């Protein structure tokens, strides 16, 4: 067991693969309230989990806010309505 600590957090995570996947599910809002409890504990106790969580959170934010939205061609809605009119 690696019980070295940084402040109160351990520096090595015993199972990053499992923990990180769990953290991602929590960030995606899939774990509900129990997820929040698990998260609090992990962030308080495990440095790799703490860092992974903040990295994942940053990535989600930039994806949501900075990924350029493609401008929708103005004629698209009209052209759909016209095509639809033909098949009705």
């Amino acid at each position, binding site marked *: 067991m690696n019980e070295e600590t940084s402040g109160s957090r351990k520096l090595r995570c015993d199972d990053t693969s499992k923990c990180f996947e769990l953290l*991602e599910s929590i960030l995606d*809002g899939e774990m509900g309230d129990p997820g929040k409890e698990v998260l609090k504990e992990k962030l308080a106790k495990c440095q790799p989990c703490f860092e992974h969580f*903040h990295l994942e959170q*940053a990535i989600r934010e930039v*994806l*949501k806010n900075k*990924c350029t939205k*493609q401008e929708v*061609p103005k004629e698209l809605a009209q052209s*759909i309505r016209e095509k639809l009119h033909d098949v009705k």
Partner: protein
Amino acid sequence: MSEVQRRKYSQVEKNSIFDGEFMPHIDSMYNFAYRLTFDEDDAKDLVQDTYLKAYRFINSFEQGTNAKAWLFRILKNSFINEYRKKSKQPAKVDYQEVETYYNSDDVDFQGTTDLRAESVKDMLGDEISNALNSLAVDFRTVIILCDLEGFTYEEMAKILDIPIGTVRSRLHRARNLLKEKLKGYAQHMGYDTEEEE
């Protein structure tokens, strides 16, 4: 989500569903289509075909259920069946290679310390977009659905016709691949990473 025609809507009802529940999603649909095809004309055709199909199969849509997920599922299937065939991008083959590779537990992303949240926050929209666009289509798709469109795992499972467990693990792998790309950008742009080249 079922294909069974369980309704028989009147013409007035059909129009009201189409205008009230389908058309409001046109922006998200076009953005999804564009991120799949990378081409404005293909994206337009894909969205148009999707809406025409949605109208044709409107009786299998249950009013009041999630129209956006229903439409995304049709769009995704149209893309696979028609557009992927003619598009130049590599299809299934390299995705499977990648998925098998990343299925192995020990190939997990090792980089919590060499990609920093701060570097990611400093990146430009174009860098993020390019990193996302460079992922194989199945990985790109789960990230678009989850992070850009805000679908739940359950909705994604229905849109993609895969079990929820597969959604979760595919997302995890997609995010690992995305982080590798972002790490590449961070190093290239001279952002602060702890790894020495």
